């Protein structure tokens, strides 16, 4: 039982962590928390099953297509729901615009794909137990993403530009950085990370339109725990959340697990709104 708690918990946790990183990448570039994070996760699974099972495309082609769709959706999100709102005075309207867009995509999925959860193909036929792809694939994706992002941010010029925008977009613009294009690139990147999370986690979570709101919430919990913008915090928070959830599921049942996660979430928000590892206060007057 311990083995299945750990393997399953870490795998689900890795998906949560990746969705958390998706939130973070979009947030860093725009100061916007976008409800499209869960949507991307949901689509990763649905589009993967569509391309590979329904269309019979090779796995690698399917993955590339899924990531391309994610990047495209990220760009559309930025143009349609973020850019116009950032211009207006009431910037918190982004909550509504991103939610509306995510819901439209979810409903379209429900209508075209169906409201039943459908199986996701087994990509690499080894296993059982630890070797089963549904356990290690999300963790691998999470590790690759983290290392990739570190390299991008530390070693490349465009990565440094991302960091500059995240640190102080006003000053970055004054230096001549193309803020809008960088923001679009960030949303495209977030789109790929989000769909990758859904793609690698889909054998476990299935290709199901209802995953959207679940991933939206459970993917945000690590961000709240780890501090917004902190990818390391999101990974630790995500894995911890996954392990806790599975342990509670096995030991005391699903009701308790769901309620406990929510209670912890609220308590952390109230006591340490900047996250367990973060620090941020803004001047208001």
């Amino acid at each position, binding site marked *: 039982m311990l083995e299945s708690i750990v393997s399953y918990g870490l795998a689900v946790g890795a998906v949560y962590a990746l969705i958390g990183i998706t939130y973070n990448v979009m947030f860093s570039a725009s100061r916007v928390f976008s409800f499209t994070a869960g949507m991307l996760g949901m689509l990763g699974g649905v589009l993967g099953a569509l391309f590979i099972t329904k269309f019979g495309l090779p796995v690698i082609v399917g993955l590339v297509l899924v990531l391309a769709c994610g990047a495209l959706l990220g760009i559309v999100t930025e143009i349609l729901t973020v850019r*116009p*709102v950032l211009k207006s005075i009431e910037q*918190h*309207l982004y*909550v*509504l615009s991103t*939610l509306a867009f995510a819901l439209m995509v979810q409903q379209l999925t429900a209508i075209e794909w169906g409201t039943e959860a459908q199986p996701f193909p087994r990509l690499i036929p080894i296993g059982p137990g630890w070797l089963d792809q549904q356990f290690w694939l999300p963790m691998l994706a999470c590790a690759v993403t983290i290392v990739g992002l570190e390299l991008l941010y530390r070693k490349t010029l465009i990565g440094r530009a991302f960091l500059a925008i995240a640190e102080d977009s006003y000053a970055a613009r004054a230096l001549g950085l193309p803020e809008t294009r960088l923001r679009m690139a960030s949303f495209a990147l977030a789109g790929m990370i989000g769909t990758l999370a859904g793609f690698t986690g889909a054998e476990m979570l299935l290709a199901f339109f209802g995953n959207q709101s679940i991933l939206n919430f459970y993917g945000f919990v690590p961000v709240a725990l780890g501090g917004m913008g902190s990818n390391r915090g999101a990974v630790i928070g995500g894995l911890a959340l996954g392990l806790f959830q599975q342990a509670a599921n096995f030991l005391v049942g699903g*009701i308790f697990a769901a309620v406990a996660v929510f209670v912890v979430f609220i308590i952390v928000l109230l006591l340490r709104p900047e996250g367990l590892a973060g620090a941020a206060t803004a001047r208001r007057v």
Partner: protein
Amino acid sequence: MTDATASAQPARVFSLARIEGALPWIALGLVGLLLPLLDDSYIGVIAQRAYIYWILSAGLNLVVGYAGQIAIGWVSMLTLGAYATASLTAGNATPPWHPYLALVAGGALGAVFGVVVGLPALRLRTFYFAMTTLGFATIVTQVALAWKSVTGGGVGTPGPVFPWPFEPGWGFYYFCFFLAALATWMTANIASSRFGRALVAIRDAEVAAEASGIAKPRLLVAVFLFAGALGGVAGGLFSSLQSYITPDAFTFEMSVLFFIAILIGGRGSILGPALGTIILTALPEFAAPLVQWSTFLYAALLLVIVLVIPGGIADLLDYRNRRPLEQHREIVARPELLSRVLDKRSERNAIALTGVSLHFGGVRAIDGLDLEIRSGEVHGLIGPNGSGKTTTLNVISGYYRPNAGQLKLNGADLPFDRPQARAGYRIARTFQTPRLVGGASVLENVMIGGMVDGSGSFAESMLSLPRHHRDEKRLKEAALLALATVGLEQLAPVRADRLQHSELRFMEIARALMLRPAFLLLDEPAAGLSAEEIRRLGALIKAISREGTGVLLVEHHADLIFDICDRVTVLNLGKTLAAGTPDEIRSHREVVSAYLGA
């Protein structure tokens, strides 16, 4: 013009507006009452569903439309109320309850969880609250699925059947109708009370709301209790209407429907969201081929509204505020009215800062400042940009906690970090950039300043009890008088965001006067005013101080400072460069060279 006409004319405009405003409600009420004459049970069921949705949305409207808190998962309150009422009546976990009692329990449960879900909104940014409500909705559904012994799990549980007098059919119809009418009446009462204005102030000008003594946490808790209770009651009715409930009946999409109805209707309106709810409930019934697309279309509608008409239908219909205003308006303050606005203060009060220092990181914004503001005096605070003037004002009004030093009022410590407590000490302030509640009228903006002087409670306002009416009458009279004093009485019914910059400055002073302040802190009140307006402003400020109020005037206009101040403190790099009478300062060599120029 005499005082009597000054206050009577806007008052008449308002009562006309009230009758105009009641007409659609009377029409809606008549249609609702007479609908059973059609004897069409299909239309009856649609109407009942609309009433039930509206009972929830009426409360949610205060949260979303008035307080501006983005509660996207309020369907969870409906779920809670429905399962509580259904399983208590059915006796799944307890001996069976009477259905009406179970409905009350559903409302109570909704109220409790309304507050629990709302807790993050008391402190945190919008998105966290949105996410909490979404998370709660997700979890309630998961629990409903998993807790089979009480909820029946995926199989579901039968809804309650209410006995006489509200038995299924038209009896239940009238039950829903009357509860919807009651919910409308109560929310309308709150919306038009000082609490409703305070909610809008929290939404549009949170900092100004705090300065007026509005305690956001307490007010929001009251609103979440109320909105949660209405959601719970709506859920109980819903479970009876459905006659059998499963977790599938409470989709997140329903939440979106409530939410969109409010946004389409317009924030800060009640009629708009009510019409929105009715239309969105009925529409899918008459467009059958579109049913599976309905949520998609709602979401698309939401996107369009947010991007194109953030004000909703109510804004489009607000023809009264599109009538052009008079072009060349002049603000003629009437300081002679001040004796009626302010209490004549004979006692000598003083706010004293000793050795106050405040650092932002490595920047020393204030560095060992001593300052005393006395009753009946105008104290000027001048200095170059970045010398710590506004920071000093923010320390006094409680927004910043200094790293060292003392802040005392008449020898007793003034607590730091509690800006909303300053109004209780009769310390009022204005802001460098006017903080206005754009969507509210000028009169309402000013009435916000008198928030702490209301004596009726939230519940009294909700039920429209006598103390509520006394409060309203007094606040309105005081606000009209304050407006007449600063010279804006003609603009009382106009939306505040249509005013010119200089008028907003005077409106802020009127709002501050509502507090009958012992101390008034003015942050660059003359910025952006014409020479003539500055002269009138100076006379007004001087007259305020002569009524016994201590005034702290942060300004850049040297002429105004030397004209009206009794004492002046000059700051440079957070330290006092010089302090004394205007004459002393004017001839102070360092001040002249550092700041005033030769």
